[in-house]
């Protein structure tokens, strides 16, 4: 079924106006010719006149239609503005909903992660007594807090000192590997963890029955006291053996 394409009002108006122009020209030319030739026309001028009147009436009707369409067009423009405003409102609402969805999704995810952590903690729960025992064990070496009777100058440190390392398993293993090489040096005695008595310092804060080898002969620059039994050779050895608290390298070999 063929669909009729309606002409727009503008096209129809222009078409009728063209017809009016042609008809009025025809009529005027015909009247001008008939005047000059003085020949009666067989009614052709009447026919043209009738057509002219018809076209003029059609033109006026179309002009009224065009004016009505102009008013409708104004109303349509207002409606289009309203539609644009609603569109922007909808877009704004969409943005806000999207943002809310993102926030809620993040919150739900974090809540789920927390629930997982809670569940995991419940499964691996430990009794408080065990934790306290473990804490007591790891803090027994004074690594987390200084001893109550610690004063500046005390050679004790929260980390294993040079002497303590040498007297441990690693020190013994190192000593075994280099035993045939430097056995005559006093440093070996130190490496072996056995200090001769002359090198053992005695400090005012120490009890008199301090065990041999437990304290280093000289440690850092914390004190400058002269040790009993001090001689130049021992001083050189001490100077060579002393290490800064921040340094862990050994130069005694």
């Amino acid at each position: 079924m063929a669909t009729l394409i309606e002409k727009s009002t503008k096209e129809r108006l222009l078409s009728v106006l063209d017809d009016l122009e042609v008809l009025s020209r025809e009529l005027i030319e015909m009247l001008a010719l008939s005047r000059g030739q003085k020949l009666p026309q067989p009614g052709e001028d009447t026919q043209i006149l009738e057509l002219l009147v018809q076209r003029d009436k059609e033109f006026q009707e179309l002009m009224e239609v065009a004016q009505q369409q102009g008013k409708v067009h104004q109303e349509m423009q207002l409606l289009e503005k309203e539609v644009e405003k609603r569109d922007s409102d909808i877009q704004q609402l969409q943005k806000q909903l999207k943002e809310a969805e993102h926030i809620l999704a993040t919150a739900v995810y974090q809540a789920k992660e927390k629930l997982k952590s809670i569940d995991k903690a419940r499964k691996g729960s430990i009794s408080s007594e065990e934790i306290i025992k473990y804490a007591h064990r790891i803090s027994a070496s004074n690594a987390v807090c200084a001893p109550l009777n610690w004063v500046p100058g005390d050679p004790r440190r929260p980390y294993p000192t040079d002497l303590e390392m040498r007297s441990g398993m690693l020190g013994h293993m190192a000593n075994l590997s280099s035993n045939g090489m430097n056995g005559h040096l006093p440093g070996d005695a130190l490496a072996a963890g056995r200090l001769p008595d002359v090198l053992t310092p005695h400090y005012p804060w120490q009890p008199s029955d301090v065990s041999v080898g437990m304290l280093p002969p000289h440690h850092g620059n914390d004190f400058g006291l002269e040790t009993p039994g001090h001689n130049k050779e021992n001083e050189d050895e001490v100077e060579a053996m002393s290490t800064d608290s921040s340094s862990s390298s050994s130069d005694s070999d």
Partner: protein
Amino acid sequence: MAVSQPKLEKDSEDSSLLPLVHDVIKCMDKDKDGQDVHQELTKLKTKIQKAREQISNMPGIDSSPQEQQQQLATLREQVRTKNQLLQKYKSLCMFDVPKAS
């Protein structure tokens, strides 16, 4: 409305070309030398040209009246639908906030 009716009739009379054609024919009967006839013909041509310009500048006549009514109905429906949508989501209460006891 009584005021708009005479204005409408005046507008339709203004758009008619018959009075000018009649003036041309009357001049042709009275005046033989053609000076006035020429003047009236010029008026007719000017009016036709002005009518063409007026038609070109008139808004809303690029479609037929039926098509325009369809477009108007579509726009009204769009506005109504979008108003409904906005009203629905603005008045939607998704969360019931419990009162703190």
